[in-house]
């Protein structure tokens, strides 16, 4: 962390509290810091992607940056989807930031459903150029980060037309601003999409193209190609793009863990500082962290933050492990990992999204002030429920895999990996009742036994969804229609599957912890995570006969006991996340707990306080009182 301190204390990276700046000022600050960071990268000769990632996190903290897509999507796509000749031309420019690029996929009228994109790239063999067009308002590229004001190039996804035929979506490198003047090129309309909930520092942009021509060589041609005469050459394998998606979704799972950890750090530290009401008559006001209702709001989230950390690490490791196979052309493990990460991306981002809000609410009025840092964490995090695949759509992708696996099992095949519990279904077939109706003896203070309970719940909900889908299919002609009419069940099945995976991974992690004290406290958190999840979904467990009424009472009782057990370690458990005050960006969550005096100091800097008497007194109030 010496490096972190170096950057944090570097005067070049200092700036006024962002909460007091206008959007344009925040954008300017972000550009300043990003540019500075690139200069320092050049200075130190840092080129390793992991090192760059670490350095960026330290320089920029948790805030979005206008160069974000340049380093992630723009550079990555050029590295993976270009020919050698294209690499030679573009990569030095991109790596040295001689050009700044972004990735323009989403359109105003089209998001998650990629095939619906309307932008066209029509090949003209006469000039050997592609002609790019935005034929409708809905086809205007909308949302890409860094597109509005920062970038001078973009990778544009468009429907390729050659020899009069549409060949589907392909990627093109499109220059959008004049080098040297930064003015939009003729035929390009580009700008900022306006204010958003958060991401003030990001110039999410729009891009409209009118008969804009680019050379044939600007199509990314590693896989599909258009030859000079317009002949289209098909790509070999389309599963390869799965790899990138798995990677990005694994980052979101990690983000969920980090964002929720930050929110928990703030809320738990503040709850130790804030005093309110009385628990015992005549005694001083207790810390609000001593109230059961407050513990019930915060500690399950703390446990969740730890659970998601382990899940994020697992996906990243798995991806690393099999990415070698991917390069070798062995894609056998990809479909499951792809399906699993889709669901986990949705599950963790939904949970973290709600959890951050819960933390903010748990801080009462002060959580609503921007000085708490919680509004910023929320507005920065919440779009991850939408980007890189809308969550409901993600859950349905996982469901598709689950149903497929279920069908395989029904037809006598065995399945492997996280869905292998479905294999047990065939053995149950002889019994007329539900799978899960078989008695599971659940020991509620044993994580391994709870994993079994979650497994039984997932099996039951997958089976129910698959059967309902089959029933719909028997009634209707359209497969899509039947799928749509079962989609609520399918999402539930995916959620149960993801929940099971998380409890399983958390539990598995416990045995890897060598320090006994750490293992003990992690075991408590793991139990809390699993039991709280049951208490919030008792319907599923009761309906499937996995738990009895008495056991549900015991679960609720045990959750309350765990709250009291975790209470003495609560602050230490958030301190372990090790967020520096500068990156936490919260007056309520300061490490030293000096909340109130610093709130006052912070407020004094508010823009409304610039002058002792606000100008609107002279403009409006005084004339009003004079008139009366």
């Amino acid at each position, binding site marked *: 962390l010496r490096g972190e301190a170096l950057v944090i204390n570097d005067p070049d990276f200092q700036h006024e509290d962002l909460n007091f700046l206008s959007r344009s000022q925040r954008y300017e600050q972000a550009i300043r810091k990003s540019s500075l960071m690139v200069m320092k990268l050049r200075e130190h000769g840092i080129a390793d992607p992991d090192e760059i990632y670490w350095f960026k996190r330290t320089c920029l903290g948790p805030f979005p940056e206008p160069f974000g897509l340049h380093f992630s999507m723009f550079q990555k796509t050029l590295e993976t989807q270009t020919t050698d000749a294209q690499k030679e031309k573009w990569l030095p420019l991109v790596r040295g930031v001689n050009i700044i690029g972004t990735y323009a996929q989403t359109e105003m009228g089209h998001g998650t459903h990629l095939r619906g994109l309307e932008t066209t790239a029509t090949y003209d063999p006469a000039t050997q150029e592609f002609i790019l067009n935005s034929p409708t308002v809905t086809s205007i590229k909308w949302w890409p980060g860094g597109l509005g004001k920062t970038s001078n190039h973009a990778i544009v996804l468009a429907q390729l037309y050659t020899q009069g035929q549409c060949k589907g979506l392909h990627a093109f490198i499109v220059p959008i601003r004049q080098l040297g003047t930064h003015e939009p090129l003729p035929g390009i309309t580009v700008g900022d999409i306006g204010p958003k909930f958060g991401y003030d520092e990001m110039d999410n942009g729009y891009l409209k193209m009118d008969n804009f021509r680019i050379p044939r060589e600007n199509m990314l041609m590693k896989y599909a190609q258009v030859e000079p005469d317009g002949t289209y050459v098909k790509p070999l394998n389309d599963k390869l793009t799965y790899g990138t998606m798995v990677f990005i979704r694994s980052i979101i799972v990690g983000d969920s863990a980090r964002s929720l950890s930050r929110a928990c750090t703030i809320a738990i530290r503040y709850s130790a500082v804030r005093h309110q009401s009385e628990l015992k008559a005549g005694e001083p006001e207790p810390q609000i962290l001593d109230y059961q209702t407050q513990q019930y709001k915060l500690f399950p989230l703390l446990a969740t933050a730890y659970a998601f950390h382990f899940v994020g690490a697992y996906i990243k490791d798995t991806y690393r492990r099999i990415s070698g196979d991917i390069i070798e052309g062995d894609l056998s493990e990809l479909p499951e990992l792809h399906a699993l990460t889709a669901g986990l991306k949705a599950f963790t981002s939904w949970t973290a999204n709600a959890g951050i809000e819960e933390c903010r609410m748990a801080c009462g009025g002060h959580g609503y002030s921007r000085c708490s840092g919680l509004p910023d964490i929320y507005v920065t995090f919440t779009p991850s429920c939408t980007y890189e695949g809308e969550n409901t759509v993600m859950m349905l992708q996982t469901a598709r895999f689950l149903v497929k696996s279920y069908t395989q099992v029904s037809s006598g095949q065995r399945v492997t990996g996280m869905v292998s519990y479905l294999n047990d279904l065939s053995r149950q077939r002889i019994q007329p009742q539900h799978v899960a109706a078989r008695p599971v003896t659940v020991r509620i203070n044993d994580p391994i036994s709870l994993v079994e309970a979650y497994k039984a719940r997932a099996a039951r909900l997958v089976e129910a969804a698959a059967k309902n889908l089959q029933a719909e299919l028997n009634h209707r002609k359209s497969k899509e229609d039947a799928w749509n009419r079962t989609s609520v069940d399918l999402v539930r099945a995916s959620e149960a599957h993801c929940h099971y995976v998380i409890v399983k991974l958390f539990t598995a992690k416990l045995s890897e912890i060598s320090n006994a004290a750490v293992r003990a406290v992690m075991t408590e958190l793991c139990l809390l995570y699993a039991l709280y999840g049951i208490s919030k979904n008792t319907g599923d467990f009761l309906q499937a006969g996995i738990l009895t009424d008495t056991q549900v009472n015991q679960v609720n009782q045990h959750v309350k006991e765990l709250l009291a057990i975790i209470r003495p370690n609560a602050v230490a458990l958030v301190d372990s996340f090790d967020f520096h005050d500068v990156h936490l960006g919260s007056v309520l969550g300061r490490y030293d707990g000096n909340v109130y005096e610093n*709130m006052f100091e912070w407020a004094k800097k508010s823009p409304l306080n610039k002058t002792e008497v606000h100008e609107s007194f002279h403009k409006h109030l005084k004339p009003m009182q004079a008139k009366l």
Partner: protein
Amino acid sequence: LAAPPHRSLQSDGVNPDLASERLTASFSVEKLTARLDGGAEHTRMRRAIVEAIESDPAFSRENQYFQSQNERYEAAVRRAVHLQKKMREMGWTENGPEIKYIYRWLSGDIAFLLHRVFMRSISVLGSDKQVAKWIPLATEHQIIGSYAQTELGHGTYLQGLETTAVFDIATQEFLLNTPKISAMKWWPGDMGRSATHTVVFAQLYVHGKCYGVHPFIVQIRSLQDHSPRPGVTVGDIGPKMNFEHTDNGYLMLQNVRVPRENMLSRFCEVQPDGTYVRWGSQKINYFTMTTVRISILSDEVILPLMKACTIAIRYSAVRRQSKLKPGEQEAKILDYQTQQQKLLPQLAAAYAFHFINIYLHELFDRGYQEIQGRNFDSLPELHAFSSGFKAMVTQYCTSGVEICLRACGGHGYSLLSGLPSLYTRVLASCIYEGENTVLFLQTARFLIKCFMAASAGQPIPPSVTYLSSAKPGKCPAKDKLDFLSPDVYLKAYEQMAIRSVTKLQHLIQSGAEKHEAWNQCTVQLVKAAQAHCHYITVKIFVETVEKLDNKAGIQKVMKHLCDLFALHGIFSNAGDFLYDGYLSGAQMDLVTASYLDLLAVIRMDAVPLVDAFDFTDKSLNSALGSYDGQVYQRLYEWAQKSPTNQQVSPAYGKYLKPLLQNRLSKL
């Protein structure tokens, strides 16, 4: 009653995807609007007022999303001043029937709202003499008031306030002080920059004895040049999640003296010799505070949910994605079951809460009559109602608005959708006027008391008599259609509420020390209060639907919404209904089937049902939710107005150009 121009079907330029939704309405939208307004004459008056305000450019909110905190504040002050003028012109008065429609349209985006609270607190807590002195000054805006109760370190728990007011017999004054930093007044609206006066709540000390928290009128700024008075430190508390237009303030008092007459003394007084006298019943005052919780529900809480539903449902009829049938056009996202499951329960809740709000207002009006007649019997019940429903409705509406926001995908995240502002506003209601967890616990305390009284054979208030009618049994439903019978689901709710209360009684009685036992049960106590309020809401919805006449198809469509609200509640809290076996697992599957069927039925009326809320485009202020459904065109036009596109950003010249080191001019 003719449809207003903004609702006309003939008008050109309506997106065909939205126009087609309006052709299939199963009921008369105009009649439902009149029903929601409480009669066609109210609808007419409301529309006339909205028309008068919207045609006045001084009230325009066109550039709201692009303004800074300073600009928003100034605009709110300007609007408040202009409103005074407008009211005189139009002959509208503070006590007239128009006022609620005016403020409803303004949606709180105006200054001096706390000035109104300042006036109300003087009217309620002040002596006749004090009312005569201060109210005319405030009415004429010679002074601008605020209401300073909350402190930096103290909120919901009033006894914990630390500000002091010490009586000085020698000068016949109170000496007000902020003894430490956590005692600073923090959050009061209009106080940071605007107010000249404020009502300060402080611990009263006379002859060294503390008499508890009392209200004092304190002048904080000069009436000449608006500078802070000696001993007063006052300012704005800085940016928040919303309310940029409001100057929520801080206030520190150092030996600030106010005359003895400035303590509000309708109920108690410090006499010149320092004798403390209390008279009359403070219960009426207590009642007034209780009613505030109910009075915020309609405009601050339910209205945002109605607006969010309007925006999200209209947008979902315009937005198309993926194909449901091969070869066809991409489907409207409103046709997806998962989208219906997100939005339609929120729509049903908006109606449910509209009706419960009417019920609560009638209840409180009756209560007020009784209290006027010095009958305070209904006070505990009313208090429990106001606490529990404030907590439940604010919580539900907040999560409902957020669901609507996220159901609009990326575009919901743009401020131009209007949804982020609706969300950040409504969520503040979960905290102000009493933190929700604390309020639920107050309702729970009432329920437990009543249950114990009933067990001892004592009479209990009508709203809770069901608690003593517990009979063991099982739900009789055999078919999914049985769950469309209000008797069936009401009984299930009633049983569930009874169980959650009776379960607790044992816990409380078994507790070794009472307060310890209480803290050990608070999680379940909150659940019990929620179950009670949920049950009452379903019950009132059912009773309202029964009373509707079925002309124009209104009763039928409201019955669907009522069923949906009830079944969605069971579906989402399945465990609570399965526990104890009142509903079986098989019955829960029937509930789910019935609930999913209802989604498809209500889907057909979804757009007309939000049209009936009758919001004008200007009051929605949303690029996604306009009546004509021209979503994309509007989004593009509005984005181009963004200051980021109007001004040249210095970022390129200052930072990007040196970075790019471009010797290249073309690639």
